[in-house]
Every structure is written in C-alpha cells, then in structure tokens.
C-alpha cells in the first residue's frame, strides 16, 4: 500500500453518501424553503413573488402559536416521562443476568417492531369510548360514563411514550455499560449507602446517555406525525399535522412549507442549544 498521503481519499469515499443526501434530502428541503417564501392566492394558487408573509402569519396567529406550544409541550412531557420510565428500566436491565437481559431487551424493543399505524390504531381501540380502558374503568366503578382518551393530550402522550421509551432505554443502557462496576464498589466501601451510590456515582455517569436519549425522544416527538394524527386527530393538532392539513386540506402549500420550516428551525435551535449546554457541562469529565 502506498504510504503517501492521498488527501482526496476521504472526500471521494464520502462523496456517494453526500450526493445521495444532497439529492434526496437537501433538494426537497431547499424546495420547501423556497416554496415557503411565495405567497398564495385562493383563486390563483402559488404566486411567483418573494415574501416573508407566511412566516409572519404563522408567528403572529394565536392559532398556530397554540399548535407550536402544544407540540413542544408534548415533546417536553414525553421526554420527561421517558426519562422517568426509561432510566430505571435501563438500570434494571443492566443488572439482569445475560439470559433474562436479552429476553427483556426484546420486550423493550417490541414497540419498534410494530408498524406505527398498526400500533397507533391499537392504542385507538384501547383508548376509545367503547375500548378496554373504558370498560375496565366502568367495571371498577370509576364512573358510569364511557371514558375516552381519544383526541386528548394524555392519550397522545401515552402512545408516544410507548414507542419512544426504547430509544431512551438503549441510550442510557449504552452509557451504563461503560461504567466500571468497581467504581460502585469503591463508593460502597468508602461508606456510601446503596442509594447514595446510585445517586452520586451511577446516575452522574449515566448522565450522557440520559441527555442524548432526551434529545432523540424530544426531536422525534416534536416532529411526530402518525401518532398525533390518529390519537390527536383534527381536534388536537400538532405542528406536523397542521403542516399536513395546510398542504392537503387547505391546499395552501406555501403556508404549510413555512410551518414545516419553522418546526425544523425550532427543533434544531432547541437541540443544538441543549447539546451545547450538555457539552459544556460534561466535556471535561467524559471523553
């Protein structure tokens, strides 16, 4: 093999991937961005002028503000609940013996193996007024009225947590795997109680996993479409379903494009600043 430096090799090797993404991801994004800068007339369709009017409309309209608020509120809640469920789950998983661990890992990953539509329709059957949830709650005497979580914030949160918890578990589990188990023994031998070891030694070392898991869950929730569309429906729109409706119901493509671009910008802004925060906090501790 030649020992001479070939500075072009890395670029050549990444070129196919870069071209692939540029063509299939970059181009539609740029087209969406350009589309969002045109105005729309209900009689004449998309105009050829250039304007920020769509953005002004989305940002200024309380209707859209509410949708954006709901979306990021939902993302925040789902993230918090995924942390609350996923971190203990990952901890327990990391302590299981290998045979049980692989069985439980499969169960944890289960939701990801089912198509989003099937899974969500399953939840819809469960949540609906004549669903199992309603029947059980009536049988237990919590009320005579049928209970429905369809078209509710709670319903959306539960269905999204269900499918996103695995991402949190995997992410936290990966960083728990990196912990030297002797560092827990060391703390224990220095007089720490089991709770203190968990709080002061294990949890801080799992923190990078919790934080990166949070980013994944937050981003996936904020841009989730199928679950909010089925469980939330038209009554509880999120940004993704609002953009969809602008495109396909109102046929106001430029406004839909503006919503989509704003969602992307907001998502990126939140994740990048969160990541910065995390890096500043942990850079000197972890490689």
């Amino acid at each position: 093999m030649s020992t001479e430096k070939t500075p072009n090799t890395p670029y050549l090797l990444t070129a196919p991937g870069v071209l692939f993404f540029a063509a299939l991801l970059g181009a539609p994004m740029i087209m969406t961005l350009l589309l969002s800068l045109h105005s729309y007339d209900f009689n004449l369709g998309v105009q050829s002028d250039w304007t920020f009017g769509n953005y002004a409309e989305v940002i200024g309209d309380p209707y859209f503000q509410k949708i954006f608020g709901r979306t990021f509120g939902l993302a925040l809640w789902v993230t918090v609940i995924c942390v609350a469920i996923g971190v203990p789950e990952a901890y327990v998983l990391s302590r299981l013996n290998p045979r049980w661990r692989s069985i439980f890992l499969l169960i944890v990953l289960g939701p990801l193996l089912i198509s989003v539509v099937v899974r969500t329709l399953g939840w819809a059957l469960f949540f609906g007024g004549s669903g199992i949830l309603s029947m059980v709650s009536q049988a237990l005497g919590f009320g005579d009225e049928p209970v429905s979580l369809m078209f509710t914030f709670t319903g959306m949160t539960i269905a999204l947590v269900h499918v996103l918890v695995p991402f949190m578990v995997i992410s936290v589990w990966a960083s728990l795997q990196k912990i030297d188990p002797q560092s827990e023994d060391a703390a224990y031998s220095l007089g720490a109680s089991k709770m203190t070891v968990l709080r002061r030694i294990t949890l801080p070392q799992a923190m990078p996993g919790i934080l990166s898991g949070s980013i994944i869950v937050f981003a996936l929730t904020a841009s989730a479409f199928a679950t909010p569309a089925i469980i939330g429906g038209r009554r509880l729109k999120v940004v993704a379903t609002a953009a969809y409706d602008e495109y396909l119901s109102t046929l106001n493509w430029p406004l839909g494009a503006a919503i989509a671009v704003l969602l992307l910008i907001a998502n990126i802004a939140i994740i990048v600043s969160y990541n910065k925060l995390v890096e500043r906090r942990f850079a000197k501790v972890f490689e």
Partner: protein
Amino acid sequence: MSFLKFDSLRKEFGDFVAVHDMSLSVERGEFISLLGPSGCGKTTTLQMVAGLLSPTSGKVILDGKDITNTPPNKRGLGIVFQSYALFPHMSALDNVAFGLEMRGVGKAERLERAHNALNQVKLGQFVDRFPKDMSGGQRQRVALARALVIEPPVLLLDEPLSNLDAKLREDMRIELRLLQQDLGVTTILVTHDQEEALSMSDRIVVMQQGDVSQVAAPLDLYERPLNSFVSDFVGKTNILQGKVTDKNVVSVNQIAVSVNTEAHVVGADVALSIRPEKFTMSSDNAGLPVRVKASIFMGASWLYSVESDMGELLVTQPNTGSAGFARGDSAYLAWEEGALTVFGGVQA
C-alpha cells in the same frame, strides 16, 4: 491476639470451591501479600475481607469483632482496585474527599484532609484534574489517597500496580512500602507478581487452587519453599526429577547428587530444586560439565541455558564486567549442597 483473622474462610461458586477453608492471622501494621496464579482464590479472599463477597462459611474477625456479615460500607476498609475505580465525574480532590463526606466530615475539613492526602502521594498540584486527564500512575495515586484518607484499619490492594509500566511499577513498590510503613496501616496485597510480593511484604501467602501452599517471610519463602509449586512460582528455579539411591544421595539421570535426604526413604522418587543463581559456572575442570545453549545478557547478570547430563538447566551469573560465556562454550557448574531443596514425590 492478632488484628485481622480469617477463620476457615470458604467460598464456593456452585460446585467450584474458590477458597478452601483458609485461616490466617495478620498482625497490626503487617504487610501481607496473597500471591498466586490467576484463579487461585486470592482476589476472592480479598473481596470477602472487603465485604463485596460473602463467604460460604467461616469468619473474618477484625480487631476482635466478627465482621463477616458487616456490609462493606460499614467496615471502613480502604480498597485500591485493579482498575483504580476512580469516579470519572469527580476531580481528584472530590474523589479523595468522597469517603470523608460519607463519614459526615465538614466541607472545610474534608477538603483540607483530601488535599493533604493528595500531597502525601505527590499529587498536590493535580487536585483539580479529572481522572481522564491523568496518567495511569497518577490515577493509581489518587486511588491510594482515596483509600488512605479515611484512615482505614486495613488497606486492601487488588493488583494495584499491574496496569503500570515496568519502571513506574518498581518506583511505586518502594513508595507504597514506605508509605505503608510510615502510616503503620495493616495491608493486604493481592498479586500474581512474585517480585512485587517479595519486595513489599512482611509475609507472603502463596495460594494455589483455593488452598494456601505456604505462608512465610519473603526470604524464607524464597530459600525454603515447602513444595515444588512454591519453588517454581516464587522466583526462577530448576526442578529435577530423581530417586533416592542411598542415604543423602539422589540420582538424577544416573548422576549422583549429594543432598540431605533425611525426610525421604531410600528408593523414593523425589524432585530437586536449585535456583539459577546458586550455581557457580567456570571453565575450571570441576563439577558438572555443561555446554552453553543460549547466553543472554541481562545487564546486572548473565542468563544461560545450559545442557548437561542432568538435563537442561537455567543458570544466572552476576555481571563482573568481563565477557560471559558464549553459545557453544563448554563450562563446569558447581554448587553448595545447601542450595538444593528436596521435595517428595513426583511434582512439577
């Protein structure tokens, strides 16, 4: 009354007996090494003393108190782990102060004491460093300071030097021993490195497959091993199979070797052990004729592999400043009768 006592300590993992009814008494301030090949039960023993493993049967008694069932966080022992097990999310100072915090020592005092402990291991200027920015040797010292700052009655060292490079390891041996003697802390070291055990310990416990082979001071262990396993594991040695043919005569490959055989009857199969440095090798026509098969210069000494009628032998001779024997040379080996140790039976 001994300070730390193991009373028939036994650990089984399923059908496997890792430690076989081990009893040992350790005096206050003593430095004891548990030495043996991997899988001999030395680390298991240490973990039972630390409380990280509970024994199947037997007791651990510290200063007259039975601590067999005391959890590790109530034992107050200082442990240095093989991987050092530092807390990666804490600075060196916080690592060392952690044990004091757990003991409820106030912030100002614990930082001062942690600082002093780090000074003691010559890391005074690295208090704010995080483990990932430290070298192996520095991490090792932080781990040592962290274990010592709580002023433990017993210091447990689990192969603490095995991850260091050779030069640093030798320096740390001296440093660790000096520190241990200054503080007078009772110490148990687990190691598979016989040099480490020989150079630091007051007494060495040689273990083999869960059993104690011999407990002795380093010099005694080296000069008077109880069996060929100890003799072979501690230091280098030549083991020769032979038969007692007459009182005080052992025949090795038809060569009569005179040696004290009072513990063995005539006709018994025995093994002879002689250390490589106990030979005197010269060109004078006296002793066992040998031919040099390999000659290796080691700096302070020469290491030879020689062939003789007694079999292949390892010989070391001090470097006296002149050229040693070369490959193919003929020479003669002589030794004193007391340099030979006789073990019963066919062992190797």
